[in-house]
Each structure stands twice: as structure tokens, then as C-alpha cells.
């Protein structure tokens, strides 16, 4: 399909006597807006395709009848009048007609106070009591959605919600039903909103001009914006990093509601988590005082039944504070911080620096991540610092560093628009990166051929032109076969291979061994389909590749990523518009936390540990000698704790008990630590093993920069005051460092960012001032005038040879294959509504209401064979443990597979998962192990 080109023609017209020049194709409404003339409109929003159904925007273009300015295009020499008696009368009458059966109380006017119809009524001085007639039959209210109130009586059928749902978010839930006066908006096949396939992104409520679709109150009563404080910040959840304006009630220190804010990365779009998941910060279970473990609770061990692994008591979604809190006593900051510093110092003196380790978090800001790794490296004296990136994209980054010399994405996700072909593989994009998915769906609807490759038929697969359901763990075979076809049919870019790559010969030899017929036997995709998709990919002028945990979380994760990189190198799809490699980052600051050096083998900005010049640079900057040896990774540190070589740990915002594989092993490891300090906003499962718990600040309570999946560095601003005695994370790191004898003092996050950017060349030139309001992409050589570099590596790679390297790999099966005893394949992942270990989202009213309990998904055919149905309980067992949870039938899951989300402590997926590691990325195989399914009784 040929993509529409933007017009380069300029037309000049006169609007209210003023001459205005605009590009051809611009509507009168847009042209007027650009000249500062506002034309009232109800059905149009600049983010939507104009439809001209409300007729409020009519203007006089000198024709017999008035023209709707939102759809009529400006033409050369056109003379437009936007106001006259005739136009006024026309608009006023329209308003009166719309108001005639409008409800007396508009839900929008009663909340945010911005009902556009009532505003027009005021402008035209309409007295509603003169015209009001009762609303007709069937115009009812629908309160079934946990987050959105539907009042059909206030609907003016402007079509905005339908277009927002279809064309911005591409969820296709809202349509219409009936005709004439009986017409209403309808969800799916006219289901109540709460029972429909609505994903609660709230885009419809955001664009609705009347009281028909409004947000329900989640914290304190929603009030007009003018009465609230506005904070321009970011979403605290995923790596898309959507820009948000939080509306704050300063009296109660509460976020009242959230709205999408314009930014190149998110274009005001949000998903359910961003729009409705902000209330966890005010949850009564927030930690507010430092806690020290009581004497009688030594030797250490898990405190709650759930963490002990016993199935007693009522399974719950949250840590039972009543069960855990008695083990701790409240302490002063002085006592707690002194204890942490002296115990860590003691371990360092007795057992050496390498007995200490720290886990940072990809939820922390760049500043916090930078300071944390500085603490571990300069004060603890070891490189044993890692974080949850190890568990998500470590293998992708290992492959990217090895082949193209940089772990960063080579292009932003919204550039998928310019791609002829987009490949999405191992990514449940609509659930895990919902707003990035909207751009991909958008592109797929307007000319980009979308290829989705996954073992599950996920939401994004519905939009695919080619969906390849592969056998779990067979990625390498499929990609080798695709490359076999590309090379065999000469669909490769010879110039690019010659000028920008090395190692092509070896790749060509290896993939010769993978004809599609062979791959078909391994990955289950018909050879003809492999050929067809390879040709589609090979013939594209521009192709972009997105991938997620389905690629990386395997023992062959690095191999999988190497294949994808080879595909891009082979076809020259890097460094141009619409091309690129984009591993979709999970947490809001995965990219930044890695950039800031929360990685055991590299200093900030991927400067290698062990290179003498680099070491010298950081020794000079930090004023202390540094350990020349790379440190241990997450799973290696846990193994070290189990063996007793790691004795003391400091965890900032991580919850490895739930997030790391093989929980039964993690339990023993954590209990085995001599000293554990946990710094978090809630009492986590991991905190049950702590000696000291430090109450930290949530995303909403601090300034900091966060780097999204696109490399966009953005500023998150303080929206709320921290509860009780909770303190800023960076201040706690400074306190501990200072008490351990290394003075750390900063005036604020900004000063830390300054120090970090001075040591990280990729961030050079960025500061809080030039990052406002919508951030910059790193590298950004000229922050004053540019948004940063969108496309990387168009002219070679940051490798010694300046070339990208092909690394051919053989297919290898997963570490633990199904057998007679464990016949199913277990896959783990996330749900749209929940975030990782659930500490935030399960304390968010709306998100918890939508997905309140642990579930696993199986194919209905498998369920039928076991005489099970949706809602029944099953036991899932692997060689490492058993969990009991409800089952849900899903055609998206292939027969023989089980999908378990890992958010739910009462049925923790990681009791089951295999901690076998990828040899390069050291990432565990979360996406594959053998499992047994058996019917079970509901837990007592």
C-alpha cells in the first residue's frame, strides 16, 4: 500500500478579513485556529478525523448555505466569515435543539466543570427552562464500568468517543445502535460498558464534550481544574513514559484525576494504568516510619503464611500487615540509618566488599539509580549492583552491545508510521505497552503491513496482516529460516552488508542449514508462510522490529535477539526513517536505570568496568579506588546469598521474592542474609526478610528524570507531599553513604542529574531546564534547538570496526521440556491492569476492581479434555513448586500451553518458573518450563 504524502502546496484565504496561508488540505477550522480565531465546535477535536456532524462550526464562505468549517478544506482565494447574524442564529438554534432534552444535571459540569454544550448555552444566553422537554425512552445511565460513567441522556451523538476508540486507541469497542431519536452509542454488541471488551483506557471520556462519558471519582470528588493544582509529570508505570498532567487537591494532598498531556512520545494518549492507577500513593498501607526487626524475630525467615509457602488462612492480594508488622518496631531515622550503615560497614570489614550487594530498581529515577550505583561502587566497594532489567531485557542488551555496540533503541516507536513493514514479536504490546501499541495499530490501519509473531494470540495479533503462532522457544529456528529465504531469494541489501556489517559469510553458511521446511517442524509455522513473510519483510523499503519479553526471557534470549538484529542488518533496516530495532522497555525507567549504571559490568552510560581508563575516570570523579572486577547479576547475587558469599544487601524498590524465578530458592536465600535493608513504599514480601525497612517516597512525591523506551529523558515532578516520615530515596542513599564514611551531599535531584550527565556522554547537555516540558531524546547534541536524535546508526555503529556484526546462532531447545509428568508449557507475563508484583496496582481501586484475583489461561479445548471450565480452580505444579488459582478459557493460548500472570502473591507464578539462565544475558527462562495441570478445590 502506498502511504499518503503530506501536501506541499500552500493556499491563501481570507478569514474575517485577515489573510491566512496554510498547507493545502488544511480545513477552515484549522486555518482559523492557526490565525487565532476560535470557531465553536462540538464534534471535532484536533486529534480526531473531522466528520462534521454537529454543524456548530458553520461559517459563511459566500455560498448559498453555510459550510461546516471542520470538514471544509481551505481553498485559494476563499473568503470566510466566522461570525454574522445568520451564523449566530444558526448556532444558537442548534444549541437550543441539543439542549431540549439534555439532562438537568450534567455529570461533566458537576465534575470537571467543562461541559462544552452548557458553555455554548451560556455564550448564547439560552435559558434552558424555556426549552426543556423530558428525555425520551431508553436514554438511560450505565454505571457498570469501574472507571467511566455513561449517561446516554447527555449524549449528543457527536461521534467523538467512537472515533477516539476506533482511531486513536484502535480498540473498536464503541459503535452506535438504532436510528432516529433512539440512536445511542453502544459498546460491542450493545453490552453494558463494564461487560464489554472495553479496556478502560478512558480516551472516550477524555474527548467527550458533554456529560455522556465522564470519569468516576477515584479519590476525592472530581472538581473543576481551576480549583486544583496542575502538575505536569509522567506516568509511573511502563517504558512508554506517557506525559500526564495530574490535578492535585492540595488540601487533602491527593491526586484527583489524571489527563494525557501532549508529548511526541504519547500524543496525550493514556491507558487504564496511567489514567486511573494513581491512587496507590495514598493507600493507607504506605510505610511512614523506619522499622527495625524485633529481637524475638531472629533467626530471620518469612513472616506471613503466604511468603512461608504455607497454604493457610485466606489468600489475599496484599501483604497482611497484621501478620507481618508485629515483627518490627518503629525507630527514629537516626537509629535506623546508623544501624544500616554500621551493619553494612561491619560486613564489609569482616568479609570484604564483595560480600555486599545492592538491588536498585527500574522504577527509580535516573538520579536515584545513579546515586545508588555510586553508593555500591564507591562506598560498598564492589560492582555487585543490578536491578530488574536483568530480568527483562538483559539478553537483548547483551546481543545489541555485542553486535551493534549499543543497547539503545535505534528509532522511536511512533516512527512505525513510516515503516512499510512492522514486526512485533514476543510482545503483548496492547497489555504491556498499550500506548506504544496504539501507534503500531494506527500504522497497521494506514498502510504498514504488520507481522506479529508470538506463541500467544495477543491483542496486537488481532491487528496483524500476518500472525505467526510459533511453538514457544522456537524463535531461532523461525528467524534462521526467514534469513535462509532472504539470502536464498536475494532479498538482502548488498550495499548495506558491504558498507556497514561484518561476518555475513558465517551467517550465510549457518542459515543454509535452516530451510523453511526444517523450521516448520520446529516452530510449527508452515514453510509457505515463512517464505511469504520473509518476502514481505525482505521487499519492504523500510521495516521496523519491536520485541518484548517473549524474545528475551529465554535461556536462548540473547540468541533470539541476535537473530532479530541479523534480520535488520541483512536488509539494511537501521538508521533510516521507518526502520530500526526497538526492544520495548518494560518499566518506566528501565532505559534510564541501565544508562545510570545499575548494571554490574558497566559504569554509567555503559562504560565498561575493567577498562583502566574508564576506571580512572570514575575514580577521579568519585575520589575513591574502585573494584576492577565486574560484579554479580541478580540471580547470581541470590545464589551468592544462598551460598553465604553475599552477606549484606540493600534493596531500593525491588521485590525479588515475587519477581525472581524459583521463589522457594529466593526465600531461602533472603533468609540466609546476615543483613538486609529494604527501602520501599509498602511492606513487600521481600521486606519480611529485612532487618531494617526504610519508608521511601512514591513516584508522585519527588522530582526526577526518567528515560523511556525511546531514549526520551523526561522530568517527573513532585505532585504530592510524602506521607508521615517517609523520605526521598536519594536522601536516604546519601545518609547511608555519609554514615559509612563517604560524604554525599546534594541540594536536590537537579544537582545529582548534573553530576550524572557530566559522566555520561550520551546525556551531555541535558538539564532540567531544557528537558521541560516534553523531554529530549538522548543523545541530544543541541538541546537548545533540537528534540534529540531520533535515528541512530545511519552512518555506522559504535563498535571498534564501525560495523554491525552478524552473530549466527543455532537453534537450541528450552532448558526444561514437557514430558509425561509435566506435559504443559508454562508461559508467564503481565495483564493490562497490573504492574509487576502488584504492590502498586493491587492498591489502586480501579485496577484492582477490574482484575481482582489470580488467574491462569488455558485453551478451551484443553479445559474441555480435563472437564474444567472458566472459573474452576486448578493446581499448577512444576519441579519447583505448586500454586492454586482460577482458570480462564482463552483461545489466545495455544493447546498445550498455560499462561500465568506474575502479579499475584497468592498464586505466585515464580514459585513455578525455572531459574535456568541465558549464558550471555544471565536472564532466567520465565517464558518456558514444563508444568502439570490438575483440577483443585478452591482454597479454604
Amino acid at each position, binding site marked *: 500500500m502506498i502511504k499518503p504524502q503530506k501536501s506541499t502546496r500552500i493556499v491563501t484565504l481570507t478569514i474575517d478579513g485577515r489573510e491566512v496561508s496554510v498547507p493545502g488540505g488544511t480545513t477552515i477550522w484549522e486555518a482559523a485556529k492557526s490565525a487565532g480565531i476560535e470557531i465553536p465546535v462540538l464534534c471535532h477535536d484536533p486529534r480526531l478525523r473531522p466528520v462534521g456532524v454537529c454543524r456548530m462550526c458553520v461559517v459563511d464562505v459566500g455560498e448559498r448555505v453555510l459550510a461546516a468549517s471542520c470538514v471544509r478544506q481551505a481553498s485559494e482565494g476563499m473568503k470566510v466569515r466566522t461570525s454574522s447574524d445568520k451564523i449566530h442564529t444558526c448556532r444558537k438554534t442548534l444549541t437550543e435543539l441539543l439542549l431540549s432534552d439534555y439532562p438537568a444535571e450534567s455529570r461533566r459540569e458537576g465534575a470537571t466543570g467543562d461541559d462544552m454544550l452548557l458553555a455554548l448555552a451560556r455564550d448564547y444566553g439560552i435559558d434552558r427552562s424555556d426549552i426543556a422537554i423530558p428525555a425520551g425512552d431508553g436514554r438511560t445511565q450505565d454505571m457498570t464500568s469501574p472507571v467511566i460513567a455513561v449517561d446516554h441522556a447527555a449524549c449528543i451523538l457527536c461521534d467523538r468517543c467512537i472515533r477516539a476508540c476506533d482511531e486513536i486507541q484502535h480498540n*473498536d469497542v464503541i459503535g452506535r445502535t438504532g436510528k432516529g431519536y433512539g440512536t445511542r452509542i*453502544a459498546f460491542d*454488541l450493545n453490552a453494558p460498558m463494564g461487560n464489554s471488551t472495553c479496556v478502560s483506557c478512558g480516551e472516550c471520556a477524555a474527548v467527550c464534550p458533554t456529560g455522556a462519558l465522564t470519569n468516576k471519582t477515584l479519590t476525592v470528588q472530581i472538581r473543576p481544574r481551576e480549583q486544583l493544582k496542575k502538575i505536569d509529570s509522567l506516568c509511573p508505570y511502563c517504558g512508554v513514559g506517557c506525559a500526564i498532567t495530574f490535578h492535585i487537591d492540595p488540601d487533602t494532598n491527593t491526586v484527583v484525576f489524571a489527563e494525557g498531556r501532549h508529548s511526541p512520545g504519547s500524543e496525550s494518549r493514556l491507558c487504564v494504568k496511567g489514567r486511573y492507577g494513581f491512587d496507590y500513593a495514598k493507600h493507607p498501607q504506605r510505610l511512614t516510619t523506619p522499622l527495625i526487626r524485633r529481637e524475638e524475630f531472629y533467626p530471620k525467615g518469612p513472616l506471613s503464611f503466604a511468603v512461608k509457602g504455607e497454604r493457610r488462612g485466606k489468600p489475599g492480594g496484599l501483604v497482611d500487615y497484621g501478620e507481618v508488622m508485629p515483627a518490627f518496631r518503629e525507630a527514629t531515622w537516626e537509629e535506623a540509618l546508623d544501624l544500616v550503615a554500621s551493619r553494612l560497614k561491619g560486613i564489609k570489614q569482616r568479609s570484604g566488599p564483595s560480600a555486599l550487594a545492592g538491588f536498585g530498581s527500574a522504577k527509580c529515577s535516573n538520579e536515584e539509580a545513579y546515586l545508588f550505583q555510586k553508593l555500591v561502587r564507591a562506598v560498598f566497594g564492589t560492582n555487585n549492583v543490578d536491578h530488574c532489567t536483568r530480568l527483562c531485557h538483559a539478553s537483548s542488551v547483551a546481543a545489541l552491545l555485542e553486535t551493534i555496540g549499543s543497547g539503545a533503541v535505534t528509532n522511536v516507536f511512533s516512527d512505525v508510521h513510516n515503516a512499510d513493514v512492522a514486526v512485533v514479536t514476543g510482545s503483548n504490546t496492547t497489555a504491556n505497552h498499550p500506548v506504544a501499541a496504539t501507534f503500531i495499530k494506527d500504522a497497521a490501519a494506514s498502510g504498514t503491513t504488520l507481522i506479529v509473531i508470538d506463541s500467544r494470540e495477543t491483542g496486537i495479533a488481532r491487528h496483524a496482516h500476518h500472525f505467526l503462532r510459533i511453538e514457544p522457544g522456537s524463535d531461532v529456528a523461525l528467524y534462521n529460516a526467514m534469513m535462509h529465504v532472504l539470502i536464498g531469494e536475494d532479498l538482502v541489501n548488498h550495499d548495506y552488508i558491504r558498507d556497514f556489517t561484518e561476518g555475513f559469510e558465517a551467517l550465510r553458511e549457518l542459515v543454509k542449514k535452516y530451510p523453511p521446511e526444517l523450521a516448520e517442524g520446529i516452530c510449527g509455522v508452515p514453510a509457505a508462510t515463512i517464505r511469504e513473510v520473509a518476502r514481505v519483510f525482505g521487499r519492504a523499503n523500510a521495516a521496523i522490529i519491536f520485541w518484548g519479553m517473549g524474545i528475551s526471557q529465554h535461556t536462548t534470549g540473547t540468541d533470539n535477539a541476535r537473530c532479530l538484529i541479523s534480520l535488520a542488518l541483512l536488509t539494511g533496516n537501521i538508521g533510516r526513517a521507518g526502520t530500526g530495532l526497538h526492544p520495548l522497555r518494560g518499566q518506566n525507567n528501565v532505559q534510564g536505570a541501565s544508562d545510570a549504571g545499575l548494571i554490574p559490568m558497566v559504569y554509567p552510560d555503559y562504560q565498561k568496568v575493567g577498562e583502566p581508563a574508564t576506571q580512572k575516570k570514575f575514580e577521579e570523579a568519585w575520589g575513591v579506588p574502585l573494584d576492577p572486577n565486574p560484579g554479580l547479576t541478580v540471580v547470581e547475587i541470590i545464589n551468592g546469598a544462598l551460598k553465604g558469599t553475599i552477606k549484606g544487601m540493600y534493596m531500593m524498590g525491588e521485590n525479588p521474592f515475587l519477581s525472581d524465578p524459583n521463589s522457594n530458592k529466593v526465600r531461602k536465600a533472603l533468609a540466609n542474609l546476615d543483613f538486609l535493608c529494604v527501602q520501599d513504599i509498602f511492606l513487600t514480601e521481600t521486606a519480611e526478610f529485612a532487618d531494617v525497612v526504610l519508608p521511601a517516597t512514591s513516584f508522585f512525591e519527588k522530582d526526577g528524570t526518567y528515560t523511556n523506551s525511546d531514549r526520551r529523558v523526561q522530568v517527573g515532578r513532585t505532585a504530592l507531599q510524602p506521607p508521615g516520615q517517609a523520605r526521598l530515596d536519594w536522601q536516604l542513599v546519601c545518609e547511608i553513604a555519609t554514615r559509612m564514611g563517604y560524604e554525599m551531599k546534594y541540594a536536590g535531584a537537579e544537582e545529582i542529574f548534573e553530576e550524572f550527565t557530566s559522566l555520561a556522554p550520551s546525556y551531555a547537555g541535558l538539564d532540567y531546564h531544557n528537558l521541560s516540558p516534553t523531554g529530549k531524546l538522548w543523545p541530544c547534541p543541541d538541546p537548545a534547538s533540537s528534540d534529540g536524535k531520533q535515528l541512530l546508526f545511519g552512518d555506522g555503529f559504535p563498535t571498534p570496526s564501525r560495523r554491525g556484526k552478524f552473530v549466527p546462532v543455532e537453534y537450541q531447545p528450552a532448558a526444561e521440556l514437557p514430558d509425561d509428568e509435566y506435559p504443559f508449557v508454562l508461559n508467564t507475563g503481565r495483564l493490562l491492569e497490573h504492574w509487576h508484583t502488584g504492590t502498586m496496582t493491587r492498591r489502586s481501586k480501579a485496577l484492582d476492581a477490574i482484575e481482582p484475583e489470580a488467574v491462569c489461561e488455558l485453551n478451551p479445548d484443553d479445559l474441555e479434555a480435563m472437564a474444567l471450565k472458566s472459573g474452576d480452580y486448578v493446581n499448577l505444579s512444576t519441579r519447583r513448586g505448586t500454586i492454586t488459582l482460577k482458570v480462564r478459557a482463552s483461545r489466545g493460548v495455544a493447546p498445550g500451553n498455560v499462561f500465568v500472570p506474575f502479579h499475584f502473591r497468592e498464586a505466585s507464578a515464580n514459585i513455578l518458573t525455572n531459574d535456568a539462565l541465558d549464558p550471555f544475558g544471565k536472564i532466567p527462562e520465565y517464558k518456558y518450563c514444563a508444568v502439570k495441570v490438575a483440577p483443585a478445590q478452591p482454597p479454604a
Partner: protein
Amino acid sequence: MSESIHPAVCSAQPSQRADKNPDAPLFEGAYKERFDHILSRYPNKRAALLPVLNMAQELRGWLSPATITRVAELLELTPDYVRSVASFYTMFQLRPVGRHLIQVCIGIGCDLCGAEEVVEDLLEATGTRIGETSRDGKYTVVEVECLGACGFPTVVQVNDKVYENVKPEDVEGLMKELD
């Protein structure tokens, strides 16, 4: 089927030709041929929606959620869109209807000439309310906007057959004819 018949032309007598097995695949055999033929007449699948819905209703008697979803799949549209279209036309039934679908015009002409009374008498005679199907599965009375015969109010259409100038006193005879 004969090439001379426009593929959009289907019987408007829903349940008379209705397929008795609602779980069967939607278009098979001759219906599959007709489906393919319909598609061949249009530039894209979306354009074929109305005739395909017509045929689906002919086959199933009404457009159930399952039928709508299946049509959406076949035409690569979203179910909400297909239902939006189907719900716009009174000739598409979104609920199961009786063997005799009695459509009474309540357009302005018929309304002025006493359509309301005709409707009331029909409801009384069939023992139903608007849109309901009688217990014996024989009758469903619905009001429709305009049947395009404004010169002969009140207009009543029973399945394919149009009755003109129906007065309340004609209802009894009409019912007898249907029995």
C-alpha cells in the same frame, strides 16, 4: 443460484427459510457460493456488509450476537461496527422473531391516519407487546418508520406481503388470513 438475481435480494420472510441449527458454520454449500459471489461484486469486503447480513438473516431467521460476530470475522470488520449497521435498519432483526413478522408503519402519514390504533389492535390480537414474540412463536409486531406507501395509510407488511389502507377493523380479518 441463477446469475440473474441480484445477490442482495434475499427472502424477507425470516423464519420460513431459517436454518434450524444455529451452531452450524454460517455460510456453507450454496450459501458459500452466494457469499463468494456477493464479495466478487464489490471493491472491498466492507461494501458487501448489507447483502451479507441479508443472507445471514435469511439463513438464521435473525441476527444473533454470534451471527454478527461471525459476519464481522468473515468481512474483517469489528463486531460493534456490524451491529451498528444492522441496528440502523428495521429490516434486520436483532432478536428472534415469530413466523409472521408484522411491521406496522408509524411514519407521519400512517400515524395521522390511525396507525397507533392498528398497532394496539394487533398487539391485542397477538397477545404481545411491541417487539415480543407470541408464546406460540407465530407473531411478532413491530413498528417501522416508513414502508414507502404513504398514499395508502396505514401500511402493514407481514413478512414479504404488503397490506394497504389497513384500518383497526381490518385486523381481525388479517389475523384470520395469517392463521
